[in-house]
């Protein structure tokens, strides 16, 4: 129970859950009130018995949901773990035993793809509101689990939990508007943002909005600061390495990439390319449509690539790295105890070993020793010449298969794309812009490709030259 008694634990869970469920009840109650008084209730169906017909409206449904949350808050109030509403033990064990990096990554990708494909159904306010409630209910029901609580309620992890919910909300909002706009524009109407062309004075309309935002935000920050103390652990010690040692949460996507790539790629090259790639977006996106309003259909390619990069490769990796990676960077299910002695067999194999040892049944070729450097060259040239020559010779002997694969990936795919699927792009973008786009996409795709290779073949490196710290 992480250094506190079960009763203390129950009290801290209770202290979180009671206001949490009350807030959810209020949230649904207000929604029901708005539907009843402001938007006009929608009847889902009618309950019919002989001589009696009763309309079941959205306002009624969300009132019942609000009452349900109020009951949950009462159940959580006693600081009694056996009374507290929680996920069934069997469900938690199932989740722990079934989840791993593969399921997590494929699962989140599948969910995002389904949400995208059926977006016009998922963005409907009633559907989105149900999902929103279920997400919050999942959080509430999981909190009484001590392992889940220990990770989610860790002060520095609170922002990530907030980020997940904020992103869910804003992604819904943007998609809802985009779906509406796409429908309108297909019917030849202008986007919603164009409807209200009226100009208003900044004082008072904008200035007051800004002031209200500032006051609200100040209040949020002060309450947050009062409710949650900033973390402060024991004084720094260079001899006591914590396990796991984690970078600040916003860099944990990069730390997660270290599972698949060496630090020079995961920590330097790929982050630099993320920044360069972001900066390049306006210059490689030649599509003039979709400027200043929400739309998906008019800029599908840009939208999908960005969401793949941001939601999948950036945010879900951060969530994985922060919440699900424990000691020794092992994967732990959301309800699993972070056991530092958990052993995961890692037997990853380089492509060159696959090729020479398993394929051809012989040992790896020796590293060539170069003897013929002319002695009259100054040392600063010969010192440079020796490692380059040796490096290149390793590339094309021991690592020849990986080298050819990587070279063809970066050299053959861009022109191949230009004459096939990206023909239209190439013609409209010109050589340089097209090549920048193609290479950025290839680097972006390199991460999921490496992930799949690792999961399916235990592949460690395509090119492994530890002599020169170049493993790819």
């Amino acid at each position, binding site marked *: 129970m992480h250094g506190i008694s079960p009763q203390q634990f129950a009290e801290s869970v209770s202290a979180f859950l009671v206001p949490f469920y009350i807030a959810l009840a209020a949230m649904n109650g207000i929604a029901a009130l708005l539907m009843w008084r402001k938007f006009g209730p929608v009847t889902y169906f009618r309950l019919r018995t002989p001589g009696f017909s009763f309309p079941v409206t959205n306002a009624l449904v969300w009132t019942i949901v609000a009452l349900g949350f109020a009951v949950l808050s009462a159940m959580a109030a006693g600081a009694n773990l056996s009374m507290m509403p929680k996920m069934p033990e069997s469900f938690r064990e199932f989740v722990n035993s079934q989840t791993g990096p593969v399921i997590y990554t494929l699962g989140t990708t599948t969910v995002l793809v389904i949400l995208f494909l059926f977006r016009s159904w998922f963005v409907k306010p009633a559907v989105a509101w149900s999902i929103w409630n279920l997400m919050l209910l999942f959080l509430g029901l999981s909190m009484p689990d001590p392992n889940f609580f220990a990770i989610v309620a860790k002060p520095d992890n609170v922002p990530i939990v907030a980020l997940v919910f904020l992103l869910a909300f804003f992604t819904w909002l943007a998609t809802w508007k985009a779906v509406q706009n796409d429908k309108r524009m297909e019917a030849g109407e202008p986007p919603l943002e164009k409807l209200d062309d009226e100009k208003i004075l900044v004082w008072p309309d904008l200035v007051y909005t800004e002031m209200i935002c500032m006051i609200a935000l100040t209040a949020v920050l002060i309450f947050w600061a009062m409710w949650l103390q900033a973390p402060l652990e024991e004084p720094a010690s260079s001899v006591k390495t914590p396990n796991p040692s984690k970078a600040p949460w916003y860099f944990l996507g990069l730390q997660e990439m270290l599972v698949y790539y060496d630090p020079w790629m995961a920590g*330097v090259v790929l982050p630099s390319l993320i920044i360069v790639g972001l900066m390049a977006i*306006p210059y490689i996106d030649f599509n003039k449509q979709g*400027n*200043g309003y929400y739309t998906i259909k008019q800029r599908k390619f840009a939208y999908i690539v960005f969401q793949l990069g941001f939601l999948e490769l950036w945010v879900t990796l951060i969530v994985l790295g922060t919440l699900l990676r424990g000691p020794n960077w092992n994967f732990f299910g959301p309800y699993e105890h972070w056991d530092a002695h958990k052993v995961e067999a890692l037997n990853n194999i380089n492509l060159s070993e696959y090729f020479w040892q398993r394929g051809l049944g012989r040992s790896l070729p020796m590293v060539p020793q170069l003897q013929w450097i002319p002695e009259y060259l100054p040392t600063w040239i010969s010192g440079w010449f020796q490692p380059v020559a040796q490096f290149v010779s390793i590339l094309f002997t021991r690592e020849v298969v990986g080298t050819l694969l990587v070279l063809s990936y970066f050299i053959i795919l861009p022109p191949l794309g230009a004459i096939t699927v990206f023909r239209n792009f190439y013609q409209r973008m010109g050589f340089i812009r097209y090549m920048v786009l193609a290479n950025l996409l290839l680097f972006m795709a390199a991460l999921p490709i490496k992930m799949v290779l690792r999961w399916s073949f235990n592949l460690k490196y395509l090119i492994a030259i530890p002599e020169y710290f170049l493993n790819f």
Partner: protein
Amino acid sequence: MAGLGEIITESQIWKSIFRHPMPVDRRNRIVVMLTNFFLHLHPVSIKKQGIALSYTWCMGGVTFFLFLVETVTGVLLMFYYRPTLEWAYNDILALRDIYSLGIMREIHRWGAHAMVITVWLHMYRVFLTGSYKPPREFNWVVGVILLLLTLLLSFTGYLLPWDQLAVWAITVGSNMARATPILGHEGPGHQLLTLGYPMITSGSDARFALLGARNVGEETLNRFYILHCIAIPLAVSLLLAIHFWRVRKDGGISGPL
């Protein structure tokens, strides 16, 4: 009391500061935007849809406001905090347990996390509305640099409490730098920089430049403190000014053409 208010607003001192009457009529609502330093960042009038919360999410504004909160609370914290191995941790401890304004540290830390989140959300919104498209390409680039600087501000501040969490997070984060290609002593190609003897060693590589030492130590604390309190905020302030100025020059808040 109405008389007192009038005496104040009619006085020479008041009028020397505020060069316009109260903005209660249309003319003065326009004049106030042109004559007030803090308000002149804004245009006088704006498209109604451009400031709809459901369109902008207010995330750029929230990020800027959080930057101001961080600046104010940061300055207050600087009065208490000494960036030395002897005092850093104890000063934070005292902020938590003794000083009455110790909550400034909580606000500063949570505000920093919030700022990272809101700057991402701002980028997300700008992308989803295609607001980086011409003529706003350059301002998007400035925004990306500001996003990077926000992360670096948070990263450099992470070290200052000098507890286990801080030191090891920075150790893990900065270890990446030693694998920088060519410039890191464990990076591919560092052997290429040679003058007959290796130029890139653990005492001269990119990580050393970042930490000021071979390991996270007092030099690093000093370096990160200066980066966190002076160098990066200065760069951010300059880029923010450009960012806001370009918003105006590139046609204001984006909207359908």
